C-alpha cells in the first residue's frame, strides 16, 4: 500500500525496472490484472486469489483474498479486473455466476464488498469503465451482459445477447458510451450503454466462438478479436461497416489478446489449448510472430502489459501455477531463426529462389559485408536500436526459367538410346559415347569419356622420362591454363546468369559473379544449402544449353591443340582456383598427362583429334608406369560427383563400360542405388529396352534378379479358355492342340507368331517365308496380314 501512494501518476518507462522473473502460485491461474501504477498484480483462479507486489527482482505476496475455512464458489474466479482509476477496487467474475467486487481498503480480512448474483450461469468477463469509477460491466454464459452501478445493489441495465453465450466485454477507449461484446457463435456486437434494448451494430467476426476482444489503446477505433478458429483479426470500427484490416493466423485457438502499449501495430496473444507460448505480433507481418515468450509449461491463461504506457514488461499467469514477468528484451525472436532463403521448383522446372537481400548482396561486390555475415545473418538484427523494429528484411526473389530445350529431357532419352555399353572394345565404347555426348552438346561428359578411355586403355610402354623434373614442368603450363579456364568459366556462368535474370523481379539483386557462388559451395554451413543447389543447378544448366561458350572451345580444339579440354572437366569439379597449391589436385593433373601418353601409343591414330593433340603435347611429360588402378580413386570420385549432381545416367554408364576396372572400388550398396535410380528413370521415360539392357549388364545381384521375377507367362487354351498347366501346346482338358501352324499344320512348340488382325499364325520361319511370296493370310481367310 505504501508503494501505491508513492507512484500515482503515469510513469515514464524509466520509472519501472525489473527483470524476467517468476513465482510459483499454489494453484492454476485463470486471469491476472495489474493495478494502475504497475506495482501490484492480482492473480485469480479456481483455487487462488492473491495480490503480489512487483519488486525489483521478485514477486512478493501481499495479500490473500481467499479467506474462510471453506471458501465458497464466489472465490472461484473466471476473470478478474483491477480498477484503473480507483486503486482499492477489484472485481471478479465467478464460475457460479456471481459478480463480486472487492475493496482493499476494508479493514477486515474479508475484503469482499458487493455481490451480484443476477447471472444464471458462469460469468466469463468483468470490465470496469476506463474513466467512470462506479461502472462495471459483466458478460455471462447465460447470454446476458449487465451493467452495474457500484453505488446500487443491483444492475442498472441488462443487455441481451439472444441466449448466445458472451465470452468477452470491453469498454471502448474512444467512445465513452460504447462497449464491444464477443459471442460464442462468432459474432461481435457493439452496444451503447444508454440503450439496453438493442445493439448498435453486429457483425460476424469468426467461425466458432470469439474468445476475446480488445480495443486499441490509442483510441483509433480499432478492435482486435481472437477466436477458436485460430485467428486474430483487427477491425476498423470507424467506418460504417466493420472492416477487417489485419488478420493474423496463429497455430491454436486464441484465448486472450492485448494491444501492446505505445506500439501501434503490436499485440500479444496467448492460446487456450496445446500451445503454451505468448506471442507478440506485428499485425502488418502476420506470418511470423515478432516476439515469443516460451517460459510457461502449460497453457497461458492471462496476459497483461504491466503498465499502460510501458511496452517492455509483460505479465502472464498460467495453468502451470506460475506467474511470470517477461522482459521484452529477453523475448525470443522467431524471425532470427527463420530460414533466410527459400527455394522451390515450379511445375515446369522453373526455379524460384528467394533470399534475404543482405545475403545476396554480400555475394556481390556492391556492398562489401564481412564474410562473417553469411554465417551469422542475424548479426544485423541484434543491433540494440533495432529491437523494437521488425528486422527489416527485404528479400530478393529470382525466378529462373528453364527454357524448353533444357527443360525437356531429350538429352537423357537420346543419350540412353545412343550410348553403347557393351559389345565393342573398351576404347571404342568410350569413343562412341564421347561422340554421342558431344553431339548432344555435353562437352564435359564427352571429355570425361575420352579421359576414361585414356586412363584405362592398356598402358603402353613408352620410354619414361625422368619423373621429377618432367612433372614439375608439367604443372606449370597446367597451372596457367587453369587460371585461364577459371576466367572463362566465370564468364560463362555470369553470362548465363544475366540471361536468366531476365525474369528476376528485383533487378538490383544480382547473383552475378559465378565464382563467388562457387566459393559459397565450399562453406558447409547450413544456410548455404539452398544456394548450393542453385549453383549446381546453374552449372548443370550451363552445360546443357550454353552452347556458345563451349562450342567455341570445341571449334578451337579441332583446329589448334588445346589443353583446355581435359582441364575443363576438372575445373568444374574442383574449386582449384581457391587453393591452387592443393597437392592432391596437382598430383591428379600430373597424373593425367602421363597416362595420356601411356595408354595411347598405338591406338592414337584411330582416336579423335582432340586426344591426338593432347598426346602430341603431353608426350614429353609421361610417367608411364602408372597402372590403371591408380586412377580408380579419381574415377570413383568423379562417378559420385555425377551421381550427386543428378546425372546418374553417366555414373551407371561409366560403371558398366569400365566393368571390372572400377567395380571393386565402389561399394555394392552405392552401385545398387545408382542402378535402381537409373532404371527407374529409364522406365519413367518408357525406355524399356535400355532399362533391360542395363539390368542385364549390371553385376549387382540385386539388380540382375529384377529380370528373373515374374517371368511366368500363363496361357489359356484357345478352345476351351482353360489355363494350360502342363505344356504350352496341348490342352489337358479338351485335348486339342492350341497352336497350329497355318503353313505346315503342325503344332508350334517354339516361337509362335500370329497376325493380330485375323489371329492366324504359325512358326516364325514358316510365316516369314510365306509372306515373302504372298501378302494374304496362309490360313486362307483372305486377310491381308502384316507382320512387322
Amino acid at each position, binding site marked *: 500500500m505504501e508503494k501505491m501512494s508513492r507512484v500515482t501518476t503515469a510513469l515514464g518507462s524509466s520509472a519501472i525496472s525489473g527483470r524476467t522473473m517468476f513465482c510459483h502460485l499454489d494453484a492454476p491461474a485463470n486471469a491476472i490484472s495489474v493495478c494502475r501504477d504497475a506495482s501490484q498484480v492480482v492473480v485469480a483462479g479456481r483455487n487462488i486469489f492473491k495480490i503480489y507486489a512487483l519488486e525489483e527482482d521478485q514477486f512478493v505476496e501481499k495479500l490473500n483474498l481467499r479467506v474462510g475455512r471453506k471458501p*465458497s464458489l464466489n472465490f472461484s474466479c473466471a476473470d478478474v479486473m483491477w480498477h484503473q482509476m480507483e486503486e482499492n477496487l477489484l472485481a471478479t467474475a465467478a464460475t*457460479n455466476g456471481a459478480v463480486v467486487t472487492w475493496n482493499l481498503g476494508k479493514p477486515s480480512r474479508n475484503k469482499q464488498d458487493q455481490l451480484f448474483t443476477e447471472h444464471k450461469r458462469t460469468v466469463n468477463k468483468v470490465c470496469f469503465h476506463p474513466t467512470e469509477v462506479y461502472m462495471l460491466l459483466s458478460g455471462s454464459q447465460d447470454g446476458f451482459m449487465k451493467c452495474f452501478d457500484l453505488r446500487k445493489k443491483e444492475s442498472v441495465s441488462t443487455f441481451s445477447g439472444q441466449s448466445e453465450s458472451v465470452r468477452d466485454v470491453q469498454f471502448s477507449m474512444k467512445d465513452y458510451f460504447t462497449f464491444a461484446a464477443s459471442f460464442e457463435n462468432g459474432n461481435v456486437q457493439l452496444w451503447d450503454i444508454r440503450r439496453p434494448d438493442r445493439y448498435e451494430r453486429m457483425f460476424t467476426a469468426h467461425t466458432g*466462438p470469439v474468445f476475446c476482444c480488445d480495443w486499441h489503446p490509442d483510441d483509433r477505433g480499432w478492435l482486435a478479436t481472437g477466436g477458436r478458429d485460430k485467428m486474430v483479426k483487427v477491425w476498423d470500427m470507424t467506418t460504417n461497416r466493420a472492416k477487417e484490416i489485419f488478420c493474423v493466423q496463429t497455430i*491454436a485457438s486464441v484465448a486472450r489478446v492485448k494491444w501492446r502499449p505505445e506500439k501501434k501495430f503490436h499485440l500479444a496473444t496467448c492460446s487456450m489449448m*496445446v500451445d503454451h507460448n505468448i506471442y507478440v505480433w506485428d499485425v502488418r507481418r502476420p506470418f511470423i510472430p515478432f516476439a515469443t515468450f516460451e517460459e510457461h509449461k502449460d497453457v497461458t491463461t492471462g496476459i497483461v502489459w504491466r503498465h499502460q504506457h510501458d511496452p517492455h514488461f509483460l505479465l502472464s499467469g498460467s495453468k502451470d501455477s506460475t506467474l511470470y514477468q517477461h522482459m521484452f528484451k529477453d523475448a525470443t525472436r522467431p524471425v532470427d531463426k527463420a530460414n533466410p532463403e527459400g527455394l522451390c521448383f515450379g511445375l515446369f522446372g522453373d526455379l524460384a529462389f528467394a533470399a534475404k537481400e543482405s545475403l545476396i548482396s554480400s555475394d556481390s561486390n556492391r556492398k562489401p559485408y564481412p564474410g562473417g555475415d553469411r554465417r551469422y545473418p542475424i548479426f544485423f538484427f541484434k543491433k540494440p536500436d533495432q529491437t523494437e523494429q521488425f528486422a527489416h528484411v527485404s528479400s530478393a526473389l529470382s525466378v529462373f526459367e528453364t527454357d524448353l530445350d533444357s527443360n525437356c529431357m531429350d538429352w537423357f532419352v537420346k543419350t540412353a538410346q545412343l550410348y553403347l555399353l557393351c559389345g565393342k572394345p573398351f576404347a571404342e565404347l568410350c569413343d562412341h559415347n564421347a561422340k554421342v555426348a558431344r553431339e548432344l552438346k555435353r562437352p564435359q561428359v564427352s571429355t570425361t569419356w575420352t579421359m576414361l578411355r585414356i586412363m584405362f586403355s592398356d598402358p603402353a610402354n613408352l620410354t619414361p622420362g625422368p619423373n621429377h623434373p618432367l612433372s614439375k614442368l608439367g604443372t606449370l603450363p597446367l597451372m596457367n591454363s587453369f587460371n585461364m579456364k577459371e576466367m572463362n568459366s566465370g564468364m560463362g556462368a555470369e553470362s548465363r546468369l544475366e540471361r536468366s535474370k531476365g525474369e528476376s523481379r528485383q533487378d538490383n539483386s544480382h547473383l552475378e559473379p559465378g565464382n563467388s557462388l562457387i566459393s559459397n559451395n565450399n562453406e558447409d554451413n547450413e544456410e548455404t544449402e539452398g544456394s548450393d543447389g542453385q549453383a549446381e543447378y546453374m552449372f548443370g544448366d550451363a552445360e546443357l544449353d550454353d552452347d556458345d561458350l563451349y562450342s567455341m572451345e570445341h571449334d578451337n580444339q579441332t583446329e589448334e591443340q588445346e589443353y583446355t579440354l581435359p582441364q575443363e572437366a576438372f575445373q568444374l569439379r574442383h574449386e582449384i582456383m581457391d587453393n591452387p597449391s592443393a597437392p592432391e589436385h596437382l598430383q591428379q593433373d600430373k597424373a593425367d598427362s602421363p597416362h595420356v601418353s601411356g595408354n595411347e601409343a598405338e591406338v592414337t591414330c584411330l582416336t579423335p583429334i582432340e586426344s591426338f593433340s593432347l598426346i602430341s603435347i603431353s608426350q614429353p611429360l609421361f610417367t608411364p608406369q602408372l597402372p590403371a588402378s591408380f586412377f580408380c580413386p579419381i574415377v570413383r570420385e568423379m562417378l559420385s560427383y555425377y551421381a550427386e549432381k543428378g546425372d546418374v545416367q553417366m555414373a551407371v554408364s561409366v560403371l558398366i563400360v569400365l566393368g571390372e576396372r572400377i567395380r571393386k572400388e565402389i561399394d555394392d550398396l552405392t552401385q545398387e542405388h545408382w542402378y535402381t535410380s537409373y532404371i527407374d528413370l529409364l522406365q519413367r521415360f518408357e525406355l524399356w529396352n535400355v532399362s533391360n539392357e542395363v539390368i542385364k549388364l549390371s553385376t549387382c545381384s540385386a539388380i540382375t534378379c529384377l529380370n528373373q521375377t515374374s517371368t511366368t507367362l500363363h496361357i489359356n487354351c484357345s478352345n476351351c479358355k482353360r489355363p494350360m498347366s502342363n505344356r504350352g501346346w496341348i490342352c489337358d482338358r479338351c485335348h486339342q492342340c492350341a497352336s497350329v501352324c497355318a503353313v505346315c499344320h503342325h503344332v508350334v512348340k517354339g516361337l509362335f507368331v500370329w497376325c493380330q488382325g485375323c489371329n492366324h499364325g504359325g512358326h516364325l520361319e514358316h510365316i516369314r517365308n510365306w509372306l515373302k511370296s504372298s501378302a494374304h493370310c496362309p490360313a486362307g481367310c483372305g486377310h491381308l496380314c502384316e507382320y512387322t
Partner: protein
Amino acid sequence: MASNPAAGCLANGENKPGRGSGSGCSSRHRTESECDVAPNLKSLARLCSRDEEERAAALEELSQGVLLCLGLDQHGSARLSELTLLHLLRLSRSCPLQEVRGRATELLRTAQEQGVEVPRALASGPSAFIPAKEILKEGPDQDILIESFLSMGRVDHITMVMALHPAYLSCFLRTQHALLEMDGPLPRPWRHYIVVMAAARHHCSYAVQQHSAGFLEAGGEESWLSGLQHAPTKLRSLQTLNKLLAHRPWLITQKHVQELVCPGADPRWSLAELIHAVVLMAHAHSLCSFVWGCGVNPEPDHIGGYTFQLPSPIHPAHSPQCPAHEDGRQEIVDGAMEVEVLMQRMVELQLQEEECTQEEMVTRFERERSESIPTAVVRGAPPDLVLRLVEDQEFRYEDFAPKGEQSPNTMRAQDYSWEDHGFSLVNRLLPDMGQLLDEKFQVVSNLTYNRMAMHEDVDTHTLRKALWNYIHCLYGIRYDDYDYGSVNVLLERSLKVFVKTMACHPEQTTARVYHDFWRHFRQSEKVHANLIVMEARLQAALLYVLRAITHYMR
C-alpha cells in the same frame, strides 16, 4: 456375417464370369448353375443408385435373376442362397422406396410358392418398445430415409427410430459416415473393428453384428471376429481404454494415453489415430445406450432377427435379447397428473429467486450423483458372438462416489469444456471431426418442438438442461453455475432410473423401465430423451479422454 453358409459365399464370389450372358453357361451349368444369377452385392448396390432408370434396371435384373433361379430346377431352397433370401427380406421390410419394397415382397412370396423355405422377420418393427404404428404415425420424413437408403444401402432400425427427429438424424448420419468411411488415419476395417470391440462391452449384439458386417465388407479378416486374440496387438492394446471409456471414464489418466502413444510403446499409436479410435469408441458406447434404451430390434438379417420356422402361436415372437412389451400400460390413470405437476415445477423453477448456500449447492450435487438408483437387473448371459470379443467381463460402471470411500475428484465443466478445449483438440488432430461433433452437440442441445405431452408452447429448456446435467453428474462432471436441486425437482424417480440405467448399464434396460417414465409423453419425446442421454454420455466420455490427451501433450 455369421449367417452366410457356403452357398452364400459362392453366390457372391464366383458368379462374375458368366453373369448376364446365357450363352456362356450352357456348357457348364451342371456344376455351377445355382449361383449364376443370384443377386450379388453389386446388383444390390445398383439398387441404391440415384438414377431412377438405373434403379429400375437393377430391380428388373434382380427379379429376373431370382425367378430364373426358381425356374431352373425343383430341388428346394439350395438354389437361392440364404443370404439372398435375407437380403430380399430386409429390402421388403425396410426399403423406403415403394417399388423396391413391393417387388421384394412379391419375389419372396413367389419363392415360397415354389417351395423354397423363406425366412420371416421376427420383429414387428424397428423397436421393441415403441409400437411400429407409432413410428409410422408420427411421420418420419420419407426424404431423409430415402437419402440414407441411397447413401448407405440400407435403412437400419436405428435410423428409423431416429427419423422421429430428422434434424438430429441427418447430422448423426453425417458424423457416423465421416467416422467410418471418410478420410482418416485408421484403415476402414479397423474402424469397424473398433466399433465392434466397443459395442461388445455393452453386450450390444445389434451393433456388433452391424459392424461385423461392415468390417467384412471393408475387407477385414474374418478370424478377428472370432476373438480378440486374433486381432493385431495394436488393436488389442486399446482394450484398457475401451473398458474405462465404456464404464468409468473418470479413471482415464495421461498414463493410459502415454502407454499407447509414447515413442517406446510397442504397438505405437499416433495421436491422430488415437483420437480417431477414441471418438469411434465413445460413439459406439453411446450408440449402444441408444440401441438398448430404445429397444432397437435386430435387423431382419441379423441373428435373432429372422427365422425359417413357421409362425406358431405358442412361440411368442421375440428373441432373447430384445425385451418386448412387459405390459407397461395399466396405470395410465394418474399419468396426466404427473405432466401437470412437472409443468408447474418448470415454471416455478424459472421464477425462483431463492438463494442457497454454497454448502447446499455442493450437497445437492453430491446427492444427485450418489443417489442410489437400482439398476441391477440380472439378465441372461449375452450371446457368445459378443462374449468372445470382451475381455475383463466383470468391469462395470460403478457409482462415481462409492459411499465412505475416497472419491475421485469431480471434473469442473468450467475447467475443461467441449467448446473451449475438447473441440480444439479434436479439430487439431482430426480435421472436420470437431466441427461435426460440435454441430451434433449443438443440434441435440437446441432440439425442441416447444411442446410436452399434450401441451403446446412449452419452453423445455430447463428440463433438457436438467437431463443433460444429470447425466454429466453421474459421470462426475460438475457445473459450478448449475443448481442440482432442480434435477431432483424435475426428474421423477422413474425417469432417473431409466436415465441411469441407460447411461451407465445400457444392457440392463428393460421394457418396464422404458415404459415407466413419462407415461403420457409421446414416443418421439421419449426418443428425444434418449438422444439427450446418448449425446450427454458421449460428451462426458470424450471430455475425460480428451483431457487426458491434453495433459499428455502438455
